[in-house]
């Protein structure tokens, strides 16, 4: 494949984010093929990503402080947080499940927040090294980003199923809402971040 020695932006061209058409369009004009407003880079990508990432980080605190569900068996049981839920899975010997829930509910959202902050800072300071590594982190985030939804789906399934009166019940708690907000915010944050800025900032600053 023949390559040109430059980017679309430096050639005065814009790639449509929806239909991939490359046109010499002015900023914020509709794509001639699919009418999507065109921008050389996602507009205010850094500011938006910062805001969404910080909001996600902030809400991650109540998501972990508040319990997400209450399992009552034979009249016994108390509201449990995400981490307490993982701990009780380990106690009952369900190691693989504990791992899945821990990775989906703790490692993925926290990892996304840390990766986003690192990528944002690296673009701000114009880091010139670790480009491939940073792109790899960005791709990792794209691939595994959704998996934090597992806990939300799990709570809805368990609370619908376990309604056995005095024998056993599972009730959802407020933490689910906060955790849901964290998941949605991290997905939006990852989508507003423009990976092309990693390359731009590595080349622009001298």
């Amino acid at each position, binding site marked *: *494949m*023949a*390559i*040109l020695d*430059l*980017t*679309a*932006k430096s050639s005065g*061209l814009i*790639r449509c*984010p*929806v*239909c*991939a*058409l*490359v*046109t*010499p369009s002015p900023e914020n004009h509709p794509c*001639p*093929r*699919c*009418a*999507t407003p065109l921008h050389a880079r996602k507009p205010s990508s850094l500011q938006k990503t910062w805001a969404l990432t910080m909001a996600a980080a902030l809400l991650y605190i109540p998501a972990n402080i508040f319990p997400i569900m209450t399992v009552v068996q034979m009249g016994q049981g108390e509201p449990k947080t995400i981490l307490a839920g993982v701990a009780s*899975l380990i106690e*009952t010997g*369900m190691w693989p*499940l504990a791992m*899945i*829930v821990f990775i*989906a509910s703790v490692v993925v959202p926290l990892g996304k927040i840390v990766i986003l902050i690192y990528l944002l800072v690296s673009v701000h300071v114009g880091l010139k090294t670790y480009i491939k590594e940073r*792109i790899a982190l960005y791709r990792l985030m794209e691939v595994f980003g*959704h*998996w934090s*939804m*597992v806990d*939300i*789906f*799990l*709570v*809805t*399934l*368990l609370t*619908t*199923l*376990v*309604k*056995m009166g005095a024998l*056993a019940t599972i*009730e*959802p708690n*407020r933490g*689910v*809402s906060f955790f*849901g*907000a964290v*998941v*949605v915010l991290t*997905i939006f944050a990852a989508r507003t971040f423009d990976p*092309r800025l990693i*390359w731009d900032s590595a080349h622009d600053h001298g």
Partner: protein
Amino acid sequence: MVSHGIWVVGPERVLFACHECDWLHRMPPLPEGAVARCRRCGAVLASSRPDHLVRTLTLTFATLVLFTIVNAFPLLELKLGGRETSVTLLSGAVELGHHGMWDVVILVLLTSLLFPILHCVALLYVLMPMVMGYKPPGAVWMFRVAHSISPWGMIGVYMLGVLVAFVKLSDMATVVPGVAVYALAALLFCSTAAGNALDCCDIWRRIGEVDDGHP
């Protein structure tokens, strides 16, 4: 220089920019089964997918049919002390509404049900007439809808949630996987295969081609 909505730079070569790093490439027509990667960052730019229209159409139609089966039967059934409960895709989604958590209800409904179904419908709306050789009205808008909601469909994650619930509950009661679990597994397979078969660049090319109003 612009013909059929594609920025042509030479005989049969199309100008392509990497979605991850913006590097420009002149893309020749790809041989069958070939994958074009970005020279600078390695991202997949395009791949040639022969028969992709018919294949995607069939798999998307199968996905939609499986959705009706998934919705008609329980995913899991629980038996404990003579009592029985069950959960379906829809009953599970609305359950948290009884506890006032409508924000979570909306999130679950959208990601496990509405977005995946809307994605299938939008694809069928564009692909079915296209296979028969004409462009439906509003094809551009519908394909944009399909494009923007596809990252919000989370059937794969939902399937993992069902498996985790199954194993977790086996500890305290008798859990029976319902018909919908098998249908959901098949649905996951079909929708993934449909996503892999879809050549969105070719579809945009066709949509642009029929659209004579544009330059």
